[in-house]
């Protein structure tokens, strides 16, 4: 089914629509800001600490200037007085205290800003996870899993960093530059202007640099992902590469991908190097001007050495924060694009969900009924996948569905647990429309064994008990015995505690399908659907599984979807589906007697050898 949907739908889901225009950016930033304001104390502590830290930081140059001047007072006449010594001591102690306090307030500023970011990040993480878990299949069909991962990891990070590197830094810079400028200019207007002359240039270059670095970083990531795809495919398909002796071509492919990435990487280095050195130059040029004009003023006795020292040290204090203006600009830019993607996900509608008056499903006879069911994927209403499907199955019965690929047989399986909602008609379980019962109870009552069983990277035991994690170990073992998996598991190094899945022991297709069967044996469903779930299991093992499951199937409705006739010829009712419609129905014998499509398929599968042998050169 997945391939059906992926092949036909465009990838234009709301999650991909990039933020456009200033209005939208501002709305996004506002929403992020509001999220932070829900922790008013932390915001207050962070901003308050910033304010105090800025004041204290700007006091240091003043104290230094004062101390230098204090050393100058006695130069003119006489020796060192006790009073002068004492003044120096006071200045020194003040300096020590102010420095230490500034450190403490900077610490609380950073800590509260970061902590708030982490708290908001935590909330967003949970919201994302919850949303992703609940979004319907139709959403997941359309959105690439890689994109969701990007939203949940990188975009979330972008939003999280907004407060500490964006908002708090903006406050810090505004206060620092504003108060600093006031202090300097009120002392000496000309020197003040000169001392601050580097600020606009450095701020501008820094912003340009960071924004460009981010843009090229995204570009570089894209090129690097091409490179990793080249490497990954090569390593995964190494036998094909070797079989066709294509190593040279592969190196060529690698070099192409690698070189385009390298050019960009060099570009980034150049951007960084040229901008940082230009920023340093402009700072030093301002410093030089202050030194020249200040020196002349010293000679003219317009200012004291202490004042000049204050100017120079204020400049060095301002230098680093001003250089980081770019980080702040980047944080705003990043938060607005990341935020709009993240909120795009969080605001996504869940299409399949409980109706307002939904009631728990009540099972009595366990009868499943399809009544004129039609289905089309959203946006593709003119291409229905299923048309007017009607059938009924009672407890203990098996309905088999067969048909060519793309005929819609898997879709039937997906409608029963409401992975998708029908477009027309109704599906009922014991007379209750499945759209009017709660999803949780419905999905407990309907179990689907997928063809491509997903394994979680955890122990085999946990995987089998996935639907019933409270189960006792014996039940897990019994289920796996029925699924003909027990002996294999006992042969594994850690038995049931062996970790499987992406980063564990890898199971073959057949073993995975058997595990999926064991999984549903743990549940107590009223309807069991095997969606082509034995394709990779050999016929002999399948036979044994069927025998073992006979008791399990006795008081349930079983639906088997397969194209292997031996898997379904025992069914009470066989539906032959083509093009979304049931074109033949009946038992195995009835269908054979009909001499229709089913019969043709049967002939093809049961006598594969005749008339299809390879006719080679001499043609025997």
């Amino acid at each position, binding site marked *: 089914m997945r391939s059906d949907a992926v092949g036909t739908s465009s990838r234009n889901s709301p999650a991909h629509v990039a933020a456009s225009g200033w209005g939208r950016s501002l709305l996004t930033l506002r929403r992020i800001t509001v999220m932070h304001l829900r922790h008013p104390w932390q915001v207050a502590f962070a901003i308050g600490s910033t304010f105090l830290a800025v004041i204290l930081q700007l006091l240091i140059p003043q104290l*230094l200037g004062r101390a230098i001047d204090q050393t100058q007072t006695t130069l003119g006449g006489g020796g060192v007085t006790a009073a002068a010594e004492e003044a120096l001591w006071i200045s*020194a102690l003040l300096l020590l205290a102010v420095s230490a306090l500034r*450190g403490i307030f900077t610490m609380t500023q950073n800590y509260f800003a970061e902590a708030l970011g982490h708290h908001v990040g935590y909330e967003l993480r949970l919201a994302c996870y919850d949303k992703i878990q609940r979004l319907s299949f139709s959403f997941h069909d359309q959105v690439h899993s890689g994109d969701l991962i990007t939203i949940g990891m990188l975009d979330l990070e972008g939003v999280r960093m907004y407060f500490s590197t964006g908002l708090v830094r903006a406050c810090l810079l505004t206060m620092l530059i504003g108060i600093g400028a006031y202090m300097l200019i009120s002392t000496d207007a000309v020197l003040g202007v000169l001392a601050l002359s580097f600020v606009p240039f450095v701020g501008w270059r820094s912003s340009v640099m960071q924004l460009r670095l981010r843009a090229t970083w995204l570009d570089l990531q894209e090129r690097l992902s091409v490179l990793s795809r080249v490497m990954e495919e*090569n390593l995964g398909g190494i036998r094909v590469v070797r079989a066709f002796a294509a190593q040279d071509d592969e190196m060529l492919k690698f070099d192409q991908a*690698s070189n385009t990435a390298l050019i960009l990487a060099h570009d980034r280095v150049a951007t960084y190097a040229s901008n940082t050195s230009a920023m340093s130059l402009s700072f030093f040029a301002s410093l030089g001007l202050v030194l020249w004009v200040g*020196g002349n003023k010293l*000679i003219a006795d317009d200012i004291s050495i202490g004042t000049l020292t204050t100017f120079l040290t204020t400049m060095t204090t301002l230098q680093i924060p001003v250089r980081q203006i770019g980080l702040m600009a980047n944080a705003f830019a990043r938060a607005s694009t990341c935020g709009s993607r993240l909120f795009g996900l969080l605001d996504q509608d869940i299409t399949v969900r409980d109706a307002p008056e939904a009631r728990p499903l009540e099972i009595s006879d366990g009868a499943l009924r399809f009544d004129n069911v039609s289905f089309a994927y959203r946006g593709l209403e003119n291409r229905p996948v299923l048309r007017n499907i009607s059938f009924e199955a009672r407890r203990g019965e098996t309905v088999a569905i067969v048909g060519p690929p793309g005929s819609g047989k898997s879709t039937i399986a997906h409608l029963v647990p409401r992975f998708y909602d029908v477009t027309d008609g109704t599906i009922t379980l014991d007379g209750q429309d499945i759209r009017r019962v709660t999803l949780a109870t419905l999905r407990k009552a309907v179990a689907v064994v997928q063809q491509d069983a997903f394994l979680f990277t955890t122990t085999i035991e946990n995987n089998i008990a996935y639907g019933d994690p409270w189960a006792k170990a014996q039940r897990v073992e019994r289920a796996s015995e029925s699924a003909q998996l027990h002996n294999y598991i006992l042969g594994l190094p850690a038995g049931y505690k062996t970790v499987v899945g992406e980063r564990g022991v890898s199971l073959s297709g057949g073993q995975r399908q058997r595990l999926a069967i064991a999984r549903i044996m743990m549940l107590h469903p009223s309807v069991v659907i095997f969606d082509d779930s034995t394709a990779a299991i050999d016929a002999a093992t399948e036979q044994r599984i069927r025998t073992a499951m006979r008791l399990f199937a006795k008081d349930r409705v079983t639906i088997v979807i397969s194209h292997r006739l031996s898997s379904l010829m025992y069914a009470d009712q066989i539906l032959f589906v083509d093009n979304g419609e049931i074109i033949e129905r009946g038992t195995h014998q009835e269908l054979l007697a009909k001499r229709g499509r089913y019969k043709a398929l049967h002939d093809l599968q049961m006598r594969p050898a005749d008339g299809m*042998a390879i006719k080679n050169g001499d043609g025997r």
Partner: protein
Amino acid sequence: MSQEEHAGEPETGRNGDHVDRKRPPLAVVGSHRIDEEIFGPVFDKMIIARIWAFVRPYRAKVAISASALLIFTGTQLLIPLIIHYVIDHSKRGVDNSALLAASGAFLLAILVNFATGYIQEAVVGKAAENVLFDIRRAMFGHLQVVSLSFMDKIEVGRLMSRLQGDVNSIQEFLETSLFCIGDIALIFGVVVVMLWLDFSLGLLTLSVLPILLIIRITWLPRARQAFMAARETSSAANGALAEAIHGVRAVQSMDRQQVNLVLYDDKAHANLRTHLSADRYAQVMVPTVDGLTGLAMAFVIVVGGSMVMNGRIEAGVLVADLFYIQRFFDPIRSLTMHYSIMQRCMASGRRLIDVLDIEIDVRDKPDAQALSAEMDGAIEFKNVTFSYYPDLPVLKDVSFKVNPGETAALVGPTGSGKSSATALVHRFYDVQQGQVLVGGHDVRDLTQASLGRQIAMVLQEPFLFTGTVFENIRYGRRQATRQQVIEAAKAVGAHDFIMSLANGYETQLGERGGNLSIGQRQLLSFARALVADAKILVLDEATANVDSDTEMQIQKALTRLLKGRTGLVIAHRLATIRGADRIIVLRHGQVVETGNHAELIAMGGFYSSLYNLNYASFDDIPKEKLDAAASARFRS
């Protein structure tokens, strides 16, 4: 990292050790992680030597960069001295010639600073990127020639993390190493200049440096643990999220959302906690450094100030010292950070060298010949014995011959050595005893590239590459024309479905041909083999169940593919087996029977008893019946 902060155990989350009602015993989210060890030696001469080999080509650039860096550091040291000079020579009433000279010197200094600053950043940055790309290329290139037995054993994911993460940490090391030189030079310079300005004042002021160093060294190991815990919980939370995304259909169909959310909350909360703790560690250094800076400044003011008042030193010395104080804490911070980077680099370097040092077992002989296209296409195994592991022979004394133009079917139960036999034709591995001959030549006397050109291969899993259909079909022969590609596609019956794709032959295939059905992928891989136009075709028949129409198409394509070629087919389907000119029956690595279908049936041995079991495919036969068939044969 303390025990309760361990990432993998949600049970020991916020609610302590007891198992509670919301957290079932058999449920976890996110995977069990096996982290690659990063605590190791900080310095390993051998690893440095190996990395140096990659840096060597850029040594001129490194030298330029290093000298630029030293000059750059020099100008940084010079600037406070110029300020000192200006202040002391701008007394009331003097003329400004000294000031003019100082300003000239300043201008010169900052221009040099600008130029060297740019050079050291740009040159070393680019060189480090080059080294990174070179190392990656060397590894990738090496993986193209290492023996397949290595590639069989290792996971692609693990290799990828070496090609990416490990290579990056080496780049980081190279970049910061140079800056380290600058940091050391700066500290050294500051110490020398301060002592030179006034020895006792300098000494007193500098006494705060060792204090910071000691604090930093005691702080570092704890802080690093906190940082690592934060990193680990992050990746645990992210891993759980990724799992939820990939497994969402399984999660929903088994209704695990509630339980998973609770378990994920534990991980997200652990992540929050460890990050807050890491932040506390990081931030506690801020007041420490600021306090020590304040202390140093206080020393300068009190001691230096009274020296100025006593006329022992000029005020300019004081100002210069204050400038230096603001500079000397940064290098200590980055030097201690470099320690971790270096440790990480050594661990990464170790892993990279492991890859680069994998031995190449299968190499062309120095005098290897190219297999000519004119050869007859015969395949012969002469007493071949082969094993992957010394004591477990996969093939034992196997001999058979496939004449030019014939199709031979390799038949036998799983594990009988069929795939190994086909791999030997291609010389993916070398035999331990005996010979494999292709076109009458021992494969070890031929070049591997020419073997690849003359032998086309179709694997059981039709592996396709990202790219267009067209590119995929001509993978085995890049110079194939569009016409040839289309003809091949028509011949195997793939043309029609290709034309029905959105862009026909120019349709982009998804990862591994994901947007095609398995049958379609199979047909494309046939077309690919046909375009390669080799004398010999080695084919591993697919076992996957496809629907009957596709099955028929595949059978037809197979016939077309084998026409006029020597074929060695690992056959699973009776139709294929029956049509072969020669059937080679393998069991436990030995040839038990050979002959065509009629002959083997007449012989009444292993093959005929298997055939008579009436399974559609030999792979479906359960083990008990196989054993029964084998023993029946020996009885007869």
